[in-house]
């Protein structure tokens, strides 16, 4: 045991001296390894970050796994009365103890900006929506219970909307007059939060609470711009549930809805209920698998090329060192020790190069410019440099070192001592 430890330390010392003596040559061969490790680590890290960013974006659009959507149509293709749907929905959420459920209604609201009135795309949702779609805010907060209880409708607006108002401090409770037109006063709504937009978006948009929208519409039917896109402003019903029970839930929700909406005495009453899943994880397979494989394949290829260069140089060197190996053997180095030392040289060198490569990769990936490129300004909570990428980089460097050291080490053990020190 003690011997093993001194052997290890001794081999590292020998390896280090050897590297120092041949530093120029070693340095040149290691640049290749450092570059390879840097690219491997970078692609893996970027892959991880892009995946996380993608996931975040797709969760924002179609919900987190598992997100179930419920829709119901009569056989004539018209939507079911929204009050009935809302009631059934509320009942279902309560029955199955589902915390995260939200209605989503796409509408448009006329908002007077200083530059004129704009029909602003509006999503009327329930409070849990923010959590369900990971809505992130740059200013203020997502709708709170107080907002929901308040008389004035609360709004969460996008960055463009907010900037058009002159980026007012939310602490001052900035308001807009929804539906104000030609001197006619509108409904005063309070802006409580601001969410970021991707760089390609140009239009103002906002969220409001579904209940507040219907209250407002009931009070002043003329306020909402109805039917802005020619389709019936039909409500979507969305719930976020544990993926494990989603299949089961889809069935019972469908059954419950179907029976609740059935016309009395008329069987299913010509009502078609659909419950479907729409999040990115619905297909079971990892949707980023192909990207991962391609990127990983390229990185491994680069690394193998680096290793090849290393083997080449190490082999040339070991032949020049036959005499040196013979001398060490005559002073007590065992064959195993010679093997280990030569191997160690390669490993010590590639670990050093690997560390440089990983550091370069971190600097490359974690700079604002790269983050901007990947995140498109949308991924606000940028994931940190993936630790597994750094570990992978170092492990790969060590493996390449061991691999590249193997051949020269085998050559080194086969050196015949008496021939090596003969002159």
């Amino acid at each position, binding site marked *: 045991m*003690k*011997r093993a430890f*001194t052997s290890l*330390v*001794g081999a590292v*010392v*020998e390896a280090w*001296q050897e590297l*120092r*003596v*041949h530093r120029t040559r070693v340095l040149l061969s290691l640049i290749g390894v450092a570059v390879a490790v840097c690219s491997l680590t970078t692609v893996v890290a970027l892959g991880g970050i892009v995946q996380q960013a993608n996931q975040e974006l797709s969760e924002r659009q179609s919900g987190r796994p598992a997100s179930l959507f419920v829709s119901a149509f009569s056989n004539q293709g018209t939507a079911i009365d929204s009050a009935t749907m809302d009631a059934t929905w509320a009942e279902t959420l309560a029955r199955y103890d589902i915390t995260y459920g939200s209605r989503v209604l796409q509408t448009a609201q006329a908002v007077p900006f200083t530059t004129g009135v704009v029909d602003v795309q509006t999503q009327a949702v329930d409070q849990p929506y923010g959590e369900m779609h990971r809505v992130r805010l740059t200013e203020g907060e997502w709708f709170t219970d107080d907002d929901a209880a308040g008389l004035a409708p609360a709004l969460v607006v996008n960055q463009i909307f907010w900037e058009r108002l002159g980026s007012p401090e939310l602490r001052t409770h900035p308001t807009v007059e929804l539906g104000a037109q030609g001197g006619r006063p509108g409904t005063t709504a309070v802006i409580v939060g601001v969410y970021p937009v991707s760089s390609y978006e140009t239009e103002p948009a906002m969220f409001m609470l579904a209940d507040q929208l219907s209250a407002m519409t009931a009070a002043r039917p003329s306020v909402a711009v109805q039917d802005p896109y020619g389709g019936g402003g039909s409500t979507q019903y969305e719930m976020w549930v544990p993926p494990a029970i989603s299949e089961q839930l889809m069935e019972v929700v469908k059954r419950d809805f179907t029976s609740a909406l059935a016309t009395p005495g008329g069987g299913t009453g010509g009502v078609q209920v659909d419950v479907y899943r729409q999040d990115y994880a619905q297909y079971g397979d990892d949707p980023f698998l192909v990207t991962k494989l391609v990127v990983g394949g390229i990185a491994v290829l680069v690394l193998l090329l680096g290793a090849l260069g290393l083997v080449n140089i190490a082999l040339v060197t070991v032949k020049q060192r036959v*005499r*040196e190996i013979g*001398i*060490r*053997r*005559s*002073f*007590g*180095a*065992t*064959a*195993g*020790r010679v093997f280990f030392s030569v191997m160690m040289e390669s490993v010590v060198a590639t670990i050093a190069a690997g560390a440089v490569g990983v550091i370069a990769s971190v600097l490359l990936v974690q700079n604002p410019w790269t983050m901007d490129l990947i995140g498109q300004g949308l991924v606000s909570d940028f994931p940190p440099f993936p630790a597994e990428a750094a570990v992978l980089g170092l492990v790969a460097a060590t493996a390449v070192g061991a691999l590249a050291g193997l051949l020269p080490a085998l050559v080194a053990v086969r050196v015949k*001592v*008496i021939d090596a*020190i*003969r*002159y």
Partner: protein
Amino acid sequence: MSLLELRDVTRTVIPPDQPALTILNGVDLTVEAGDRISIVGRSGSGKSTLLNLLGLLDMPTSGLLTFDDRPVKSYSGAARDRVRGAQIGFVFQQFNLLPGRTALENVAMPLLYAEGRSFWRRKKLAADMLEEVGLGNRMHSMPDRLSGGEQQRVAIARSLVRGPRLILADEPTGALDLDTGSSVMQLIDDVATRTGAALVTITHDPAIAARARDHFRLDRGILTRADSDELAAASEALS
């Protein structure tokens, strides 16, 4: 109990596409602790081959070779390497210092294969050893910055740093001028005497050989005890 013993040792090599070549033939030799042995012989007579056997670097083709009364054949390869490292020190004609390593690193090298205190304190032990051979001021010099005599002193320090019981010197003065050679020999003698190590010197210089107590002659693979008077006479004649 003898340190090293050869009984009827033969060493034969079979060079490719040539008939077998007997380099050593029926060699008998006993080395006891503290012995001073010289072996003279013409170039090609088999001196280095004999020394390789004494240093456990090579194995006899036939006959018995024992170290500490134990047949060397019974040691595993690694055990032989360890015994060699701990008990035997080599001094070569061509010095064989490791290029690119300082004098200190060269002297510390054998301690890399030691364990315990000698391993961990190798820098200090090596520095002390260099002081002892009079090179305390050249510790950080590279071999190519040292004169031949200085290089051989470094090599001597290296061969002694683990306190071996046997020092094997293969033509240690062969690459040095006469004066340097004799001062180097004096140094080896002194250290060997102080540490009680046995010293086997191979040379074709009768003056160097005359320093030993037991004299042997190697002629075409056959080892015979040489008459010391005869050697002394030859030495006289040369000087």
